[in-house]
């Protein structure tokens, strides 16, 4: 079974530029997550999709970050304009929604991440 795919793996940009990250979840997984992992910290959830609908975007800085999952499969996360503090690893994860189970029980499977450096 193929895992979660992400691209690019690395990106270097200057502040105020824009950048986009792509994620393809595990086939059949309805729920997709974007996390931000700053060096020395654990991942922090930015946004959660179920199919193509947003479930939770309460921690997404909406003035500069946006995300979409138009066909309920792959997803794009965009930052515009980037700031120095956006330097981090951006992780995508997916999970399988199983009818009848509490959502919190689901295992999330992570991609390799995109390492962003903003200069």
């Amino acid at each position, binding site marked *: 079974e193929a895992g*979660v795919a*992400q691209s690019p793996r690395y990106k270097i940009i200057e502040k105020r530029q824009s950048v986009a990250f792509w994620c393809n979840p595990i086939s059949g997984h309805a*729920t997709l997550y974007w996390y931000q992992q700053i060096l*020395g*910290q*654990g*991942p*922090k*959830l930015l946004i*959660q999709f179920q199919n193509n609908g947003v479930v*939770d975007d309460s921690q997404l800085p909406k003035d500069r970050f946006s995300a979409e999952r138009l066909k309920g499969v792959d997803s794009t996360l965009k930052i515009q304009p980037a700031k120095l503090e956006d330097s981090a690893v951006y*992780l995508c*994860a997916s*999970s399988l929604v199983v009818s009848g189970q*509490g*959502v*919190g*029980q*689901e*295992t*999330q*499977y*992570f*991609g*390799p*991440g995109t*390492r962003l450096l903003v200069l």
Partner: protein
Amino acid sequence: AQSVAQPEDQVNVAEGNPLTVKCTYSVSGNPYLFWYVQYPNRGLQFLLKYITGDNLVKGSYGFEAEFNKSQTSFHLKKPSALVSDSALYFCAVSPLTNRLAFGKGNQVVVIP
């Protein structure tokens, strides 16, 4: 709001010795608890989780974790550490809503 504490920044252990990585949590209601491992330049890999039932959970690569409700802890253990276990370990807690809250992580160094 849920939170996780991993009190040690780094855990050093000799190869062949028991490995323990500590985790305490705070959450409203019944907790769902997870351990993930992260190798350099890799994403997080799932090790094990506690949902309900037996307090001792067995996972991948010989790891296990013990859920202790009274101490609100979920420590990760391995009876005999390998050099290849050297990595960053994250504990995470989730309530019903599935927003995982991660700890800051523990660097494990297994010394040959």
